[in-house]
C-alpha cells in the first residue's frame, strides 16, 4: 500500500530520490506499525524522535501498536532541545 513519508532536517537523507519538498509517496507492506515503517526505511529510531502520523504526535509507547493504513502521512523529525 502507499503512504506519504516526510523526513525533515538531517533525516531527509533517507527519502527516495523522487522526493519533493521533503515528501515522497512510498510503498510499504500492509499492517505495518510506525516502528516497522521506520525500520523498513533503515532509519535510526533514536534519531527519528518526533513521529507524526497524519498531523498527530505518536508518543514512543504507541509506536509498536499504531498501524498505518493506505494514504497515511508519516512525518519524521529529529529531537530538538537546544537554545
Amino acid at each position: 500500500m502507499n503512504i506519504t513519508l516526510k523526513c525533515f532536517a538531517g533525516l531527509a537523507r533517507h527519502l527516495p530520490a523522487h522526493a519533493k519538498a521533503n515528501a515522497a509517496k512510498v510503498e510499504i507492506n500492509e499492517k505495518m506499525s510506525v516502528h516497522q515503517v521506520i525500520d523498513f526505511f533503515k532509519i535510526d529510531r533514536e534519531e527519528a524522535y518526533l513521529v507524526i502520523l497524519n498531523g498527530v504526535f505518536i508518543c514512543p509507547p504507541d509506536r509498536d501498536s499504531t498501524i498505518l493504513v493506505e494514504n497515511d502521512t508519516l512525518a519524521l523529525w529529529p529531537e530538538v532541545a537546544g537554545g
Partner: protein
Amino acid sequence: MVFSDNELSRYSRHILLPEVDVQGQEKLLSAKVLIIGVGGLGSPVALYLAASGVGEITIADHDKVELNNLQRQIAHDEQGIGHSKVSSCYQRMININSHIKINPINDKLNGELLLSQVAAADIVVDCTDNLTTRFEINQACVTYKKWLVSAAVIRWEGQISVYHCGHPDSPCYHCFYGGRNDSRQNCSNSGILSPVVGVLGSMQAIEVIKLIINKGDSLIGRVLLFDALSMQWESMQLPKNPNCSVCGS
C-alpha cells in the same frame, strides 16, 4: 492606568492594533514574565518583551558571555565578553526601555529558587539548552499551573509550543519528551544557524504577548516545527498523555 504622553508615544504602534489597544498595553505593563536562559532564544525574547513594555521581567542565566555566543545571542556584545549573561542582557534591555522592572538572576535556576521564581511569574519562557533543565521547568510550571512558552533549536531546525496544565486540553512538556534522556546533541556540538534562534525566539515573544492580552489562538496542544533549510513549517497536534507521570491523572 493613565498613560503619560511618553508612554502613549512609545507604545503607539501597539495601541493602534485593535487587538492590543490601551487595555492590552495596560495588561502588558502589569505582566510578570520569567525568562530562563538568555542565550540564543532568550536574547530576542528578552529584547522584544522589554521593548513591548512587559512590566516586570526576570531573566535568569548562570553563564558568562563568550566570543562564540555573539554569532547568534543578540542581547550580548563584545563589551560583555567575560561578564555574566544576565548583566549583559539587563543592560541591553534597560537601554531599550528604562521604564520597566528587570530582575537579573545570575544563578542556575533550579530547586527552591526555580520554584519560587515560577510561582511569582505569570508566564514562564523556557529558553534553555538541555532536556534535564526543561523537565525541571516543566515540573515547576505544572506544580504552580503556570503558562509555559517553550521553544528549542538546533542546526537549521526549531520547534515551539505552549503548555498550561490548568487547561483541560493541554499536554505538558513531559507528554512530549518524557520518553527521552538528556540530548546527545546540542548547539555546541551540532551547530546552529544564527537567525533560526531569532525566528523561534521572536515567536516565543509573540506567544507571550498573546497570552498576556488574551487574544488570538495560542499554541496549546500544537507544536510548530521549522526546517529552515527547506523553509517549511509543520504543525503537529500534541495530545495530552493520560499516563504522563507529571501531568497525567
